[in-house]
């Protein structure tokens, strides 16, 4: 997967920058250019999330693609941010630690790299609060 070369430049990966629709009040992360609720009536503005939320559901990945196999077992989760939107993320905790409803906060982490000496790419993971 070589695409992350380009993803490194996506600012939303590092700062939890999403969007907010001022018409209906919904928040989006990942960002959307179009509010699925208001569509053309929507007014989309940028919004930086506080980065706190709770675990909605999770799994422990034991078999992964090459890129992530060195990390196994790792905890994958859907987190609901305090402002409302949900996202998929890795949790920085042991498989025994995670529970549904657990409060978590965003942390800046290395996500992976392209091979042993390839480009490193970074992003957001979540850790227990």
């Amino acid at each position, binding site marked *: *997967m070589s*695409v*992350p070369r380009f*993803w490194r430049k996506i600012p939303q990966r590092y700062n939890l920058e999403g969007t907010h629709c001022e018409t209906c009040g919904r928040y989006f992360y*990942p960002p959307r250019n179009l509010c699925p609720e208001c569509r053309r009536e929507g007014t989309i503005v940028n919004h930086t999330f506080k980065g706190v939320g709770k675990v*909605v*559901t*999770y*799994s*422990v*990945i*034991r*078999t*992964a*693609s*090459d*890129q*992530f*196999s060195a*990390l196994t077992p*790792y905890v*994958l*989760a*859907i987190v609901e941010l305090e402002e409302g939107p*949900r*996202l*998929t*993320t*890795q949790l920085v905790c042991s*498989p025994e630690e995670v529970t*549904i409803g657990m409060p978590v906060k965003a942390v800046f982490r290395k*996500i*992976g790299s392209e091979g042993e000496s390839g480009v490193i790419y970074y*992003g957001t*993971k979540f850790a227990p609060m």
Partner: protein
Amino acid sequence: MRDVAVIGIGCTKFGEWWDRSFRNLFVEAGVKAIEDANLAGEQIDAMYVGNMSAGRFIEQEHIGALIADYAGLASEHIPATRVEAACASGGLAFREAVISVASGMSDIVVAAGVEKMTDVDTSLSTDALAGAADREWEGFTGATFPGLYAMIATDYIHRYGLTREQLAQVAVKNHYNGARNPIAQFQKEITLDTVTNSTLVADPLRLFDCSPITDGAAAVVVAPLEVAKKFTDTPIKVLATAQASDTIALHDRRDISTLDASVAAGNRAFQMAGLERKDIDFVEVHDCFTIAEICAIEDLGFCKKGEAGKFTEEGATALGGQIPVNTSGGLKSCGHPVGATGIKQVCETVLQLRGEAGKRQVDGAEIGMTHNVGGTGATVAAHIFGRA
């Protein structure tokens, strides 16, 4: 719109075909379907081919033309179109074929599905399959396809109290059925212990909760109902074709363990057919993971939300039960060559309605249904069939 019937079916044995090529597989399925329909090749007006990821699995694109060519139809210059919707590619190829005939644009149309998945190692196939979900915001974080369904399972277990044994029962039942299906990859019965002692893939899903990596192809021929009897004594009428979509990412769903696209496609299919749930004699659902079958039978309305575990445990979905589910053995036991699965479901339904399903025959089957899911529920195709 014209009424449409299935007049021929063909399917390869599903499995690990290291000694056979992609084109070799689909030609076998296509020829079987054409022979079954008593057709000459030049009578075919169009082809729709379901294929998810030949570009990743065998590094070949332009599948529509490739299939038409190797089916011996290049000289006929028929339109041949690849249809892609991840694991629902086959179901959508079938739906396109039905729409084409129903509209009057074509008369005799082949709908096929094919996938050759074993030519790459597990790591690459895991990565390719992750492309059925949101690559940028799910795959990037290390989400695998089993991992996403595992998160559905965690949510479901937490909310509805599904037991490990109830989940395993889905696999046991489907292997029982698959052991009676000559095209199945795994024709072997298993026990609850086989499932619950197998290796963890993505908690709580274990190896025997997951459908395997498979090579295979399936094809069907559809025609206007009014001419179907010229080709076969047992045409099977397409009573409904429905399709629905939902968010590409699981985290954006209204409810993690309800596939709203299944609910919508199911409702549309029942409305189009003018039938109720109790009219359905058997159903082939998309059990890419055991939890997927649990969700599917609830989302299609065969039992209430939260009750599919008990429903399965009590045998309601087994052969001879209230609503036999996955008489073919499902994706779990037949294998899941992603693009071919939706067409294989149609083949099984036609066999059942013709009364040709052998040891897994549902007695007196008159109405059958198929349910084919792409990704974690971003696309669903649902079809209802009846004896003509």
